[in-house]
């Protein structure tokens, strides 16, 4: 019988690294996309996923046995992505014109589509969305990403981000309006 996520975290807490494989297998794609949607850089996102599982292993002993594993990993991912994003912004502000480097990163997100037209559209959409996301304040950005990319219920978003449901709703509302403003004219 397949082990549950809780069993796997229990094994990690006892220092059993063999449990990492099945846990990663179940969650790494989702966490990669979540990190990527936040960081918009495949290399950074890949690095973030590795760090998320390192942290999961290191903190497994402190995991609250009553909590769900998925949201717990999501919380690690979001906190890690926010932290990386902040550091990245500071670095970019100091080193590179934002749009130049961001454009380069966004261009790398749109590979794999066989149709040139769709690739161009995908690239344009990706760049505009990245730019729109960058314009959001941190909390709105996190709420939007969790809702739109991870498709979490509002209650789960509230738990992951340690916010009230009302705050999640108002943040999401503001985020969507801002996204709309920034994406206007794309079609």
């Amino acid at each position, binding site marked *: 019988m397949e082990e549950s996520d809780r069993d796997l975290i229990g094994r990690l807490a006892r220092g059993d*690294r063999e449990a*990492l*494989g099945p846990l*990663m*297998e179940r969650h*790494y*794609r989702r966490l*990669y*996309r979540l990190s*990527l*949607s936040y960081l*918009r850089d*495949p*290399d950074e*996102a*890949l*690095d973030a*996923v*590795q*760090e998320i*599982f*390192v942290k999961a*292993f*290191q903190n497994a002993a402190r995991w609250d046995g009553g909590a769900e594993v998925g949201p717990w990993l999501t919380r690690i991912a979001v906190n890690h992505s926010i932290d990386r994003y902040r*550091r*990245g912004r*500071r*670095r970019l502000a*100091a*080193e590179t014109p934002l749009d130049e480097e961001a454009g380069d990163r966004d261009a790398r*997100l*749109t590979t*794999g*589509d066989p149709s040139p037209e769709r690739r161009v*559209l*995908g*690239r344009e*959409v*990706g760049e*505009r*969305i990245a730019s729109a996301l960058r314009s959001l304040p941190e909390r709105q950005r996190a709420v939007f990403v969790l*809702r*739109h*990319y991870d498709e979490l219920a*509002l209650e789960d978003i509230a738990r992951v981000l340690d916010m009230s449901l009302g705050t999640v*709703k*108002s943040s*999401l*509302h503001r985020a*969507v*309006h801002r*996204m*709309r403003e920034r*994406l*206007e004219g*794309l*079609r």
Partner: protein
Amino acid sequence: MRPWRHRGWRRRTGLLALGVLEGRAADEARAHVDGCARCAEERAGLRQALELAALDPVRTAEPPLGMPALLARVNARLDAAAAARSPLAWRPAWLLPAGALAASLAVLLLLRLPHPPSTTRSTPAVVAPAQVAVPEDVLGRMERTVTRAQTARYLDEAQDLLLTVAAPRPCARQSRRVDMEQEAERSRELLARRALLVGTSGQDVASARPVLRDVEYVLREVASLPSCARERDLQAIQREVSRRNLLMKIDLMTRELKG
């Protein structure tokens, strides 16, 4: 309708477009939007924005690395983190095998050095080494093996260092800085060893030269860091390692060198 009341509906219209309203709240919002042209326009605009956002390629992006490789990297980071916490973390683990390699090299050199003409022929024990007949091709193979083993070990240790660099400790003396003292020192040691690697300009490790160049470049960057380094400087190095796919290249090259 008074503006403040409409603002309340505006929020609900947004949530309706997002599909997060349920039951009575959703019914009420729908009923309002149906009778309010401004709200209907708002909902249509928001839906369009969300449809556009749904086209974001990130939603279906695949990690550029497969699970086995990713798992190996996570395990390597955990090893590095454990080693960094260990009081023996910075013991020169390479000393013993490097010593063995140095001894092998010394034997090889002794065997290859032209011996001075013997002035006396009365002591066979003295002339014995000169009489050891090691075929040239055997010597060549031994040298090749030693060079490749040394290079592989050097790359292995450089990889360990780069993994440690990926999980820095905060600097105790300065906030928002990371402690790079040991890593910088270790990089200098590795660079010194790199300079002593013999035979890397020959054909024996020709395929490793690009990786060696990359590793050397990154080690120089790490070696130049102050003991309490700025996070962004370290991140620039980490990005460089990532951009060059250095850890993966080292892995592949080390395996190739070890045969």
